[in-house]
């Protein structure tokens, strides 16, 4: 790639001659300064000047875009840009088009996503938003802001259903909303989906957390899935059974068992029963975690034992 030529400094551009740049520090000697490039210094000196003068204009949009490209976390530039967009009634489609490019480029910046939201709220156009999100997720499927944005969009910009555009995720933390109707069917589908994913990779902690989440959200006891969980708490049998049970998919061939998440789950099932015998079983499982399967959390498993014994 050929690098861009250095831009002409604002200080030598005739169209900026009416602006007197403002240096950052009036006193010359800050402690712990940043050693900026000349380009950044020049652009931000002019940015400070337009803010002070209260200028809202097309050239301010160009200037803030320049500052943002040099430092996308410059929230004051974003804030002033937004005020300018509103003030001069800048076409929102072109602002969104710029945001499409900048979100792609500066995926991890808070301001990129928030500015986008502000513009979407103004334009009330969200038709293509889910497609855009799906595209961006393919670049970084664990990007925090992208998922938070995806959760925000349907509630605010369009009512009801968001289907399709599912992205394969190793941290399966985003259930698909289908509204309140037919809850039982949705719960059953989510449970089967999660169990199938656990059977593919039993040591995936996200899937186990989601299983707990679906049960808890629907006020179902953990014991709802005891039959499913048990085979994951013991070593993989040499001969796998050839049974197809959709509700209780068995561990796959490559599963490394027993897995800590399953042992923990089963212990919680026993603790839920709150009977002497079941607590004993839970204690034995926690001990196996503390001593063998999950030694790093030894103190926590001991704490769980203490707490459970207090229940009796």
């Amino acid at each position, binding site marked *: 790639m050929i690098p861009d030529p250095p831009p002409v400094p604002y200080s030598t551009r005739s169209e900026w001659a009416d602006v007197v740049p403002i240096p950052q520090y009036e006193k010359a000697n800050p402690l*712990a300064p940043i050693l900026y490039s000349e380009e950044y210094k020049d652009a931000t000196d002019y940015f400070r000047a337009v803010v002070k003068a209260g200028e809202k204009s097309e050239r301010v949009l160009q200037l803030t875009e320049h500052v943002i490209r040099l430092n996308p976390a410059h929230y004051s530039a974003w804030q002033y840009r937004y005020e300018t967009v509103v003030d001069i009634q800048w076409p929102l489609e072109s602002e969104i088009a710029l945001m499409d490019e900048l979100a792609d480029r500066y995926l991890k910046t808070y301001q990129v996503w928030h500015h986008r939201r502000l513009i979407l709220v103004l334009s009330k156009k969200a038709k293509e938003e889910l497609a855009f999100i799906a595209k961006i997720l393919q670049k970084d499927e664990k990007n925090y802001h992208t998922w938070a944005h995806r959760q925000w969009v349907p*509630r605010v910009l369009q009512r009801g259903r968001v289907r399709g555009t599912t992205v394969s995720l190793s941290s399966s933390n985003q259930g698909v909303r289908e509204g309140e109707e037919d809850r039982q069917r949705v719960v059953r589908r989510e449970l089967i989906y999660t169990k199938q994913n656990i059977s593919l990779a039993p040591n995936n902690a996200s899937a186990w957390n989601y299983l707990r989440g679906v049960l808890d959200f629907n006020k179902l006891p953990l014991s709802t899935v005891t039959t499913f969980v048990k085979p994951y708490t013991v070593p993989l049998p040499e001969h796998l059974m050839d049974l197809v049970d959709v509700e209780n998919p068995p561990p796959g061939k490559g599963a490394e068992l027993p897995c800590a998440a399953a042992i923990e789950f089963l212990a919680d099932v026993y603790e839920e029963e709150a009977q002497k015998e079941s607590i004993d079983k839970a204690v034995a499982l926690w*001990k196996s975690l503390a001593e063998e399967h999950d030694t790093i959390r030894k103190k926590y498993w001991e704490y769980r034992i203490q707490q459970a014994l207090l229940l009796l």
Partner: protein
Amino acid sequence: MSSSTTMRPSPIDSFPTPTSSAQAETEKILLEHLPVGDNTAAPTLQKNAHMQYLIRNIVQGFPARYTSQDASQPWLMFWTLQAFSVLQVGLDPGNKQKAVETIMAWQHPEGGFGGGPHQAAHLLPTYAAVCALAIAGKPGEGGGWDQIDRKKMYKFFMSLKQPDGSFLVAHHSEVDVRGIYCLLVTATLLDIITSELVEGTASFIASLQTYEGGFSSASQPYYTPSSSAGGPSILLETPRPPLGEAHGGYTFCALASWVMLLPFLPSSSSASQPKINKNSLLRWLVQMQGVPAELGGFKGRTNKLVDGCYSWWVGGAFALLESIGINPAAVVPGAGAPTAEKQDGDDWDDIDDSLMNRKALQEYILFAGQHPAGGLRDKPPKHADAYHTLSCLAGLSSAQHKVFPSPARRKELLDSWQATANSTNEDGLRKRVFTDALCYTEEEGTETIVGGAPNRVNATHPLFNLTITHTEGMMAHFYKQTVPPRVFKRATAGKP
């Protein structure tokens, strides 16, 4: 590293994914940072190298790649000054004065602090600037403390308040629990926290807890009830759905916020009382600690990689659990079932009732977190930076020391409280805020320092990430109180 730990790589279940590949690669690199063969020498905290690194940044300045932090200049200052404090190093008066002058150039004429001179006021730099002033400033002319415009700051805070109890981080900006944590710390330190300011905020915090047990950055306040996108927005009922996934940084901020809001929660157990799920929070926190193959460092989300900065955000959160009623030490001794036989090198096991693995976390920071050229980092082979240097050092501190809300200290503070002339309800709250914040005390005899005394760093306040001495100094000034002296076993403020 004690030989008893098994270094089994994280299981892949013959189902490789990008996540498992990144995980395996990380574990491979981390294991290369353990001493080999019979070399069981304890790791050393390279205090001098880290100090040189910090001095270089503060005196020569930050290299151009820190331009991305131009809107976070107060953070660069805070990370650096507080890293000195954790390393038991005080700044000389000349540099302190220079620091105060630099920090005060960030105060916004309409209240709060910006990320640099002439930048808009924002909650995050406001925290960093005020905490940096707690370290470098003092009362009186030019000392910084009395030049903070607290009235305008309060107005600025109120101007950010949202109907769901949350706050924007700045005008026209996002809602983010980091901002709320920063606001609450600032308001607590400066004696400007009121019932009016924090009304509804606890409900907002409770809304952030996800099904995993940790907290996300924000929750969904509104919905649009009509099928057309142009319909009016209606405030949702509580609890509102979280936006985003449980995350270490947000979880620390939410938990610390919750603890700072406790004096403002109604004492009745009414149905409208916001609640958090303490058990699922604890479970999530402990699950964030990496396995031995990850050297026991912390991660920030499920299925993500360990990162030194979570040593503080997640590791540091454990010290706040007692304030919400999770306290393993409170269980009658002997009621629990002891598990494994005692192993060599585990001789502090008896006194350590922490729910995280303090020893493993220290090993992660010492073996993998230190950059050979000074400064601390996310993980090898990454560079050191200012943020990770403080986060790792503060995390190391939280793993070395047990700091807890001491009832004895609380009583001393209550006994010495000087009430204002007309004792109002708000004054009672001030007293509670003051004593709640300052009763945190290091428990004697519970230090567990991997590598021994030379690796010791200062204890930090679990809510604010300031030393206890700096916290007391600033709060005593703004609450106009005389804090009774503490009896320390060791001096807490060393000299360079």
